[in-house]
């Protein structure tokens, strides 16, 4: 499925249009961002542990993971004591859910919207989307939080990891044709998108294709590559908590398929044996 940005804009309008069925949906020619593929691996326990640490320190203040129990973190090769000492900040007992103290009402007042629960966010958005999104914040003086995002425009969330990533700004470069703009876009480390102007808007010089990218202005405490690794681990963790049984599922799957293949041979031979005198 393609990435969807700016869902909050359309609100009721989309439904009204859909129901009216009178005209095709008049979607703006909004260019979606090309998503980076997230190099995640649910078997990489070290990465998942690192992701868990980042998650409880940076995310689990506003966002809950309310369908996930701390106890399940033992599956990542941690001992109960390790979880209690390093990860258990929002609850008293290891059997409790990963909830937060922030109420919906307060959140609405402070951010304009309640931060979504992150238990299954990786299944809703996709790991690639999260990986690109968390690496696409940039400074925007016009927004309420001072931050904006390439993947999710006018996002309500401020850049929680900015002390690590440093501060980025958006850069625009104009091109005469799409191919050139795309070629330069593909060379970017981070997310990029291309806005297309009509010939009228572009004026005389005819540079209609605007490549938007971000550039680091002030460095954070991590180098860019270390920040990418941190986000990779964090997304890996979020993908894992979205379905903590995913590895068991596949392991069981191999056994089930093996048994079925044996049954396939047996039932086929049985079928042929019974049918040999049907002509």
């Amino acid at each position: 499925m393609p990435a969807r940005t700016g869902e909050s804009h359309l609100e009721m309008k989309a439904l009204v249009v859909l129901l009216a069925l009178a005209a095709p949906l008049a979607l703006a020619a909004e260019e979606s961002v090309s998503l980076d593929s997230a190099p995640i691996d649910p078997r990489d326990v070290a990465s998942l542990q690192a992701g868990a640490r980042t998650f409880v320190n940076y995310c689990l203040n506003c966002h809950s993971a309310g369908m996930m129990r701390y106890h399940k973190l033992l599956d990542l090769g941690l001992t109960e004591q390790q979880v209690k000492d390093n990860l258990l900040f929002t609850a008293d007992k290891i059997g409790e859910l990963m909830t937060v103290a922030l109420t919906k009402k307060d959140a609405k007042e402070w951010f304009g919207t309640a931060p979504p629960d992150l238990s299954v966010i990786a299944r809703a958005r996709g790991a690639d989307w999260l990986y690109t999104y968390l690496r696409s914040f940039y400074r925007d003086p016009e927004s309420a939080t001072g931050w904006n995002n390439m993947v999710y425009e006018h996002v309500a969330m401020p850049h929680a990891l900015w002390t690590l990533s440093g501060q980025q700004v958006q850069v625009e470069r104009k091109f005469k044709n799409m191919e050139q703009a795309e070629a330069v876009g593909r060379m970017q480390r981070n997310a990029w998108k291309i806005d297309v102007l009509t010939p009228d808007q572009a004026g005389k010089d005819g540079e209609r294709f605007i490549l938007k990218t971000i550039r680091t202005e002030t460095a954070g405490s991590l180098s860019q590559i270390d920040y990418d690794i941190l986000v990779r681990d964090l997304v890996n963790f979020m993908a894992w908590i979205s379905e903590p049984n995913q590895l068991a599922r596949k392991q069981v799957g191999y056994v089930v398929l093996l048994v079925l293949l044996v049954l396939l041979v047996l039932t086929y031979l049985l079928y042929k044996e019974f049918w040999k005198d049907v002509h």
Partner: protein
Amino acid sequence: MAAAEKQAVTGAGPFNGLLTWIDQRFPLMESLRSHLTEYYAPKNFNFWYYFGSLALFVLVIQIVTGIFLTMNYKPDASQAFASVEYIMREVPWGWWIRYMHSTGASFFFICVYLHMFRAMLYGSYRKPRELLWIFGMLIFLCLMAEAFFGYLLPWGQMSYWGAQVIVNLFDAIPVIGPDLAIWIRGDFVVSDATLNRFFAYHVIAVPLALLALVVAHLLALHEVGSSNPDGVEIKNVKDPKTGKPLDGIPFHPYYTVKDTFGVVVFLIVFSAVVFFAPEAGGYFLENNNFIPADPLKTPMHIAPVWYFTPYYSILRATTEEFVFWALVPGLIAFALLIIWRVKNTRTRVATGVTTIVLLLGLLTLDAKVWGVVLMGTSVMIFFFLPWLDRSPVRSIRYKGPITKAAIALFVIAFFVLGYLGTESVTGGRTLAAQIGTAVYFLFFLLMPWYSRMDKCRPEPERVTSK
């Protein structure tokens, strides 16, 4: 005593006594004979004939997994979403049960669509199997209702907005529409009240009807006997000594062993999805449904699950332009065709009056109403197949090029409409959906004529191949 009148059961070893006792009080052996060991099925069933028993098998999967899901699911708007995740994470093997149920829903439709397509290929709905076909269609309607009600239960964004869009369709019905929509929802929007009643429909009301219809479907089948890929009656050629059809074989053991093999093949494909791709790329479990239902946030792109998308496409294709430029001329042309070809004054008058009423409606009522009507008709029109098909032969094997082309076009239109229903609307896609809609309906509406004029080959006396 009456209990001694029936003969004793033999051949069951130590169970002879018990079976005799039962058989003298219940038509056990007679039922086994008439439905299994002495039910003669044609010996030439091919690949397409697996899907009836497979559909029954999926029904069993759905009922059994459904029972276990019901033990842990909470039909409450504030708890439903989390209770599904509770099943996925904390109920032992809950993820397996849930994935079997969600994957089973899609596989139910795959099996039923292929089963219906088989009937269309080989004319299985033709006399004397009209009622069998009608029971089958009623099962299909129940299945659609079951899937629709069940899809609300996870209470994700797609669940919520899908239900909202579909219930709002009833709003389009003139006069009673708005009240009807409120009555269905039990509220002004889809809410906790809606979730509770949909749960009741999903776990008891519809499954009861479904099971009763499956029994009726099987009884009707065993009354008239199975058709086959050649579309000839095996009853017509019987062994003069035994009185058994020469081309028939007892369902048990021949088809029980063959269908067991089919079930294993099915389970391999089914398990591959359940264990390795339960979301099926967003087609079986949609990404947006992992976001809890939010009545204040409409998703930008609302699409039903894949098995409803052909009909959803037809709904969206019915724009004002389509009503004016396609439905109005189409209706007039079709009425003229009937009046020209059918030499019966009453039919002609009835056609004329119906056409005028429909024309008035088409020109005055909102296009949305006609979208709903067309969507409903696109499903209900299958009921009429036994009477629309006037071909002298039943099976596609002996039908001519026109029918073959018509079926091919229909299948293409069905897939194109299905694909378009998953996508957002653009001008080009709407046009494609409109062409698809036209092809879809012309396949049925022109069938009485093209099926009769087609150059068919003569049917054989007996079934061919092995």
